[in-house]
């Protein structure tokens, strides 16, 4: 049996809020309450959940950007959690991120070339110039894009730059955190196509986090549904969308407006399950 790309075991993360009362200590927030799952190599894995469900915390833990309170994260068989930054070199070259905000995820003071080359510089990889040109072409931007600054690009193009940066150290795993949520509908399809193409061509493992069920359904083979710091349901995408087991998943699927159901006559009242 091959080792999974990502393996998460009973992951917990607590934060203590600042105290608000003289007598009691600050309340403890449990962002993750014991999350476990595995992502196979080459799989397109989706994580669905609403704000505050803990999916952002989970992303940061997977990427080794935060430490769990307890539990373990393994990437390609090697433990990530609990390691100091200095020993995370293997993770930085094998796992990369694409973020949601096309404005905020690129340093406005840096040229695109330097942005894309940043992982190469940080990991002391050779042939940067050639590699950057190659990457820009792979994401559909011309080589002249390297000389410009992020604000000279549209939202969709900025996400392409973000993807080029993520691919720079030739990672085997791509974590995409709501990569198309901030994009116009007509541009969203382009970026989704780009991601699925690259993931297919390069044989990457994709972890795709989103609140948008239809996007996850389109992109991913397997889905984990998160609610309130827990994974409430995991399974093959088709199966979960066709026959959700957990009440929360059912509620979530019902609440998402769908063109097909709407044209068939569903109204706003049908999005709300039990009238309360």
């Amino acid at each position, binding site marked *: 049996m091959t080792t999974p790309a990502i393996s998460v075991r009973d992951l917990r993360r607590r934060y203590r809020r600042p105290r608000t009362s003289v007598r009691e200590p600050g309340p403890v927030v449990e962002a993750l309450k014991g999350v476990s799952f595995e992502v196979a190599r080459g799989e397109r894995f989706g994580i669905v959940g609403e704000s505050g469900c803990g999916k952002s915390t989970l992303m940061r833990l997977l990427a080794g950007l935060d430490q769990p309170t307890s539990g373990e994260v393994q990437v390609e068989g090697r433990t990530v959690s609990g390691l100091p930054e200095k020993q995370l070199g293997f993770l930085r070259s094998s796992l990369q991120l694409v973020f949601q905000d096309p404005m905020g995820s690129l340093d406005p003071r840096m040229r695109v070339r330097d942005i894309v080359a940043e992982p190469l510089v940080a990991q002391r990889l050779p042939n940067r110039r050639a590699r950057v040109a190659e990457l820009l072409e792979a994401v559909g931007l011309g080589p002249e894009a390297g000389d410009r600054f992020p604000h000279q690009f549209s939202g969709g193009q900025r996400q392409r730059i973000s993807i080029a940066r993520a691919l720079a150290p030739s990672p085997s795993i791509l974590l995409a955190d709501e990569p198309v949520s901030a994009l116009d509908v007509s541009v969203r399809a382009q970026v989704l196509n780009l991601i699925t193409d690259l993931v297919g061509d390069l044989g990457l493992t994709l972890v795709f986090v989103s609140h948008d069920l239809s996007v996850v359904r389109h992109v991913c083979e397997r889905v984990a549904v998160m609610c309130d710091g827990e994974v409430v349901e995991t399974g093959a995408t088709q199966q979960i969308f066709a026959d959700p087991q957990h009440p929360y998943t059912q509620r979530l699927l019902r609440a998402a407006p769908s063109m097909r159901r709407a044209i068939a006559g569903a*109204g706003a009242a049908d999005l709300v399950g039990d009238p309360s």
Partner: protein
Amino acid sequence: MSVLAAETRPKDASTSRVLDVQGLDVRLGRFHLLHDVTFSIDRGERVGLIGESGSGKSLTSLALLGLLPDDAHVSGSIRLAGVGHDLVGARERDLAAIRGRDVAMVFQEPMTALNPTMRVGDQVAEVITIHAGRGGRDKRAARARAVELLDQVGLPDPGDAARAYPHQLSGGQRQRVVVAIALANDPSLLVCDEPTTALDVTVQARVLDLIVRGVSARDAALLFITHDLSVVATVCERVLVMYGGRVVEAGPVTEVFRRPRHRYTQGLLAASDLDSAAAGGRLPTIRGTVPSAGTFPDGCVFRSRCDHATEVCATEPAWAGPDPGNGFACHHPAGAERAS
């Protein structure tokens, strides 16, 4: 359900038309942001306005409330039922009297739309006292009515909620408060500008339900602005598709979404129809990116991204259809092959 009872409507009921926008044109500096926008909404009708960034959809909503910047050049006409004058060119004093009474608005960002230093109940009561006239400025009555409204929009413990400050409420709860403010004076037109874009799916569902129920209970007209096609399909009966500051297509939701005629509408629908595309497969796309507001091409605004564009598209396409609420403006409409 029954809590959203409509108040008695004093406005005249002879005509069913609530909003009539004719040839609305907005320029800001050297940018021409809205071109000849024409549409109307009847009583009890729910109309969606679809558009991506730069389409001019939010500008349209601000124009309806007379909240455009002072230096905007506006022409055309906006008539509202029960208001004796044109909203375009009206004095600020007259516009203020209309806002919040005849036309109300729900904005996108619930987190910042409420005054952080004022209690929620007072913010709801304020919109009642502003329009109550000289006799009716009873603060206690307004406050009691505010609690009633908060109850109607489904806030638990409305009495406590009225005394809360906005930061003590969640995003969904705040948006309910904004809806309560908008519905307080039973407006004849409710304008919602991306009211649920910042909300989670399950919260969105409840707020959409609330808006639809609140509007139908009052028999008010609804203009619902969003970029989300499936939300429009769910909430609205009719739809206007905007691109580059123009209405490029209009019609009943089922008609437009089943058989789009304008190439932009067609492309948009195809690109967002994730259900039909094979999982993990390629999606149909519209090439290029959305130009910034005011920098769209002349002639057909969509021709810079359209696969069907020809030389004739450099001229402005005429509106094809029986009326401004039904038709499209495209030289090479989809479905024409079949028809001929």
